[in-house]
């Protein structure tokens, strides 16, 4: 699935570099927080293992072809998602430089498509959840196969999106995706089975090497989490004041996608509706909308636009908090902490 440089436009490559760099920065921080000096050599040697392991071909029963192991899931199942992600970056960089397997410009895309999904979605979310109550061979097989299929599907979809966004191929999205997804379903299944076979062997021989997320949980339990509810709320408030209050002034005056489509068909950006139901709904809306059309009624000013942004953001936060309280999401966490 390694993308070559020719398949991405510089803008797409730059965006994906930024996304991958942000994920890598987060992973570096997390690995440094773990403060385990043994981890770096283990990451290095595991990276070399993935490199070597991917060179061995495995016969797919009933076919004449062969497959190889899925690096991201395997490494993360041993090292955890953060160290696994960094290891996969190293592997991808060396594959790119030494064997021209993936381009230097497309490295950000390849990190995202192959390492991010495998390590964070496959291992960080799926594997951790399945292994919550301890691993066994059935769970390992299930997690490996489902994880590899899912992450390869996501990766293949990203390849399609990145190639199309770069304007490289004339293929329509549906045709390209229809070519990419089924083949990666089969590849994902085979890679998942190989990964499962290796991890089951590892579980039998050295079960302590399998990562289940427990160590991360206990380490986090030792110290108070850095991001408290108050901090998150403050950050969100700051963000919506900035976006709603200031950036909303720079919002485009052009119609959005739906309005544009309607305008093209009917000649007007808004559809005129008639009938008693529409009239009643319109009356309710005019009564309840404090800032219609994102401005103060009868006065189109910059202040009105900013106020609308801030008011809207506040309303959403209040609504979210109310829903969380309604469903007992905060209460449940407090009770859980008390039990512990």
């Amino acid at each position, binding site marked *: 699935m390694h993308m070559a440089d020719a398949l991405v436009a510089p803008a797409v490559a730059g965006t994906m570099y930024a996304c991958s760099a942000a994920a890598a920065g987060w992973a570096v921080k997390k690995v440094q927080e773990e403060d385990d000096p043994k981890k770096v050599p283990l990451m290095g*040697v*595991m990276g070399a293992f993935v*490199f*070597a392991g991917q060179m061995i071909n495995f016969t797919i029963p009933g076919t004449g072809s062969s497959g190889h192991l899925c690096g991201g899931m395997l490494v993360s199942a041993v090292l955890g998602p953060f160290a696994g992600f960094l290891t996969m*970056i190293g*592997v991808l960089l060396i594959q790119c430089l*030494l064997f021209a397997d993936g381009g230097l*410009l497309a490295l950000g895309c390849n990190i995202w498509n192959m390492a991010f999904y495998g390590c964070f979605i496959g291992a960080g979310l799926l594997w951790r959840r399945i292994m919550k109550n301890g691993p066994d061979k059935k769970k390992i097989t299930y997690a490996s196969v489902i994880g590899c299929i899912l992450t390869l599907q996501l990766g293949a979809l990203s390849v399609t999106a990145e190639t199309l966004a770069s304007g490289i191929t004339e293929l329509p999205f549906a045709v390209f995706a229809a070519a990419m997804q089924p083949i990666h379903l089969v590849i994902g299944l085979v890679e998942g089975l190989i990964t499962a076979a290796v991890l089951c062997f590892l579980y039998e021989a050295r079960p302590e090497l399998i990562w289940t997320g427990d160590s991360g949980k206990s380490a986090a339990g030792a110290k108070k989490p850095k991001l408290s509810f108050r901090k998150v709320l403050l950050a969100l408030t700051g963000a919506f004041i900035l976006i709603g209050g200031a950036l909303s002034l720079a919002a485009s005056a052009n119609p959005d996608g739906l309005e544009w489509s309607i305008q093209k068909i009917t000649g007007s950006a808004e559809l005129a509706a008639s009938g008693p139901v529409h009239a009643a709904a319109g009356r309710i809306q005019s009564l309840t909308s404090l800032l219609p059309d994102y401005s103060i009624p009868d006065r189109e000013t910059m202040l009105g636009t900013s106020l609308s942004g801030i008011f809207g953001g506040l309303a959403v936060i209040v609504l979210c908090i109310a829903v969380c309280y309604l469903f007992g999401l905060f209460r449940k966490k407090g009770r859980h902490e008390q039990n512990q």
Partner: protein
Amino acid sequence: MSRINEAVHEIHHLDAMASREGRINRIHPLSKLLVTVWYITFTMSFPVYEPGGIFGMILYPAVTMRAGGISAVRSIRKLKPVLLLVCAVGIANPFFDRAVLFRAGPLPVTGGMISMATLMLKGAFAVLASYLLILTTSMESICYALRLLHVPKIMVTMVLLIYRYVIVLLKEAERISQAYSMRAPDQKGIHYRAWGTLLGQLMLRSIDRAQTVYESMLLRGFDGSFRLSKKQKMDRRSAVYLAGWLGIVVLLRYVSVFKLAGSLLE
């Protein structure tokens, strides 16, 4: 030669080439890395219907090959897998974009044909640039340049470790698969019943090796990062190389050399 042996051979070849004392090899690694990324970015930014302009970009690989004494044949051979991949993606273009742009004699040349040709040229030049970088710069020097660009220490250390152990583990993988194939002759690949045991053994050996590596690193005073032995200063030659190529690449991107030459001849 098996695939693993080929890979080991290739790494040895790259190491030997990078450790030579050539003119290009002596340039500061940061200059070479930046020029490579700059060159690839500008090459990829050509519109898909402009193969004429992109031809001018051949200047950088051609000059580097000549100055570095690098075999063109071997470098071109390196392009095969990438061109196949690019071709697989671009093959649809001639079928979907059938607008005839011009005629080459009796043959109509469509937009799809042009965009596919541009795509293949882009792929070829990008691979050549990366390959020339690794042929003239050792992995240790590239890691040094990455550190200068403030790539986190932990990542650079890990890349160096992967590079150092990749040959050891490749050879180990080769021994294991050779031993397997001798016990299971006429069998392509590894049978599914042996998947876990075979690769699992290699994994366990790797993990044990990591422990040994860590202990020996501690004995040598490892404190979380490698001391890169070759600390080069950016000399005048490297600065001129960097500034020169940055300028030339921008020029090649916006001025079509072939059109210019043609108009001068007229």
